[in-house]
């Protein structure tokens, strides 16, 4: 490997969190282009076919992780368990927070149509959602957002990697169908 790739490998090995490329450049006293080239070399080297470790880009930086097909061995060895599954309510609340953050509980309830107190508490407990401040509105309610753990557990480099919300919009035909159903209901009620 390139000498710089070896040096980056050592830094990524030692760092407990993903390292942004500019910090790598700073630590090795080299340019962003040098770092990019060396990271390419590292990525080629640490591919699952060759190693039990792989290079990943997640949560704003680069990090080394156990290759997926070796994870079960490691779990057996360390006794670590997979994180508990998220219920649909938790995932839905998390989606609202991730796309709208920073967001208050009232705004989340407004989108979901139900109080989201329990879901928010459970997400906070799992470290997926955190309080990021207070809104500058009457009562200064708590603002919620996602953190590094959210990005890591969902394999995102940053919040910008979330697919655009518009992708999940209903199709025109679906909207028409709902509209027709609502009209029928409204007319029946009006009679």
């Amino acid at each position, binding site marked *: 490997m390139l000498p710089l790739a070896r040096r980056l490998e050592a830094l990524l*090995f*030692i760092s*407990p969190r993903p390292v942004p490329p500019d910090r790598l450049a700073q630590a090795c006293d080299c340019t962003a282009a040098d770092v990019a080239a060396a990271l390419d070399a590292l990525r080629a080297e640490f591919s699952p076919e060759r190693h039990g470790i792989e290079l*990943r880009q997640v949560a704003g930086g680069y*990090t*080394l*992780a*156990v290759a*997926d097909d070796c*994870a079960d061995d*490691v779990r057996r060895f360390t006794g*670590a368990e*997979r*994180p508990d599954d*998220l219920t*649909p309510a938790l*995932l*839905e609340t*998390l*989606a*609202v927070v*991730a*796309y709208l953050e920073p967001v*208050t*509980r*009232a705004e989340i*309830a407004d*989108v*979901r*149509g139900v*109080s989201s*107190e329990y879901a928010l508490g459970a997400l906070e407990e799992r470290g997926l959602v955190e309080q990021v401040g*207070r809104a500058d*509105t*009457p*009562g*200064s*309610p*708590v603002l919620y957002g996602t953190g590094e753990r959210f990005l*890591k*557990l*969902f*394999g*995102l480099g940053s919040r910008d990697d*979330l*697919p655009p*919300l*518009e992708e*999940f*919009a*209903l199709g025109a035909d*679906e909207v028409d169908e*709902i*509209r027709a159903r*609502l*009209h029928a*209901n*409204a007319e029946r*009620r*009006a009679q």
Partner: protein
Amino acid sequence: MRSDAAAVAAPPVALELDLDVFDGPFDLLVTLILRDEIDIWEVRVSRIIAEYVLKLADSGEFDLDATSQFVVLVAALLEMKSRLLLEEEVEEELEDLDPDEAARRLLERLVRYSQFRNAAGALRAAWETHSSRLYRAVPVPAELLRRPLPEAALPASALAEALSPLLREPPAPDTSHLADLAVSLVKELRRLRLILDDEGEFTFAGVAPRDRLERAVTFFALLELHSSGEARLRQTRHFGDIVVSRLAAPRPAAG
């Protein structure tokens, strides 16, 4: 119950709240709710009551006026909230609207909500792929947190200096202060038992040697006679003489 006029005139309820939707004094919260700036749905009244009770317990004072005022305000909040809970009113609100307008609003809400529900589905797929990934979480070795010493930073003589004292045979321990001791505890016990047998009673001053260390041994022997139940020790005042009297015959195996 106080009249409304009196309730308004009463001093404000001094209770600082740190709720999820609100951070500030209780009075302000009530005002904001009345002005529709905070949705009462989002306020947990039970939490407010719990905080107030805690505050009362902490202060140790019971202010009847302030507490009455608090009860009135909390009751008002609960009434508002329970009214809103009645579905009729919600229905009424929708029925007030033109059916087309009501349908349009509902449609907007549903369309907006569906986006997030679909996004949650995409998040689930990402979670299934990535959540079980294992990252390294090992502290940086201490060696890499220290600036290493440069080459030839230490003189080699430091090694010899560190080793030499270890390799010499340690000098024999100095026991001279022990060798001078004329009495041993066993000997002293034997001597005191003989005196007890002969006299039945003696005083510490009467039997103790002059040497401080030897006197200490004699004193130890007295304590031994006491704990074995052979003698009774009496002292009428602090630092006074100790009178030792026989309680039982010496044990045959004594000594």
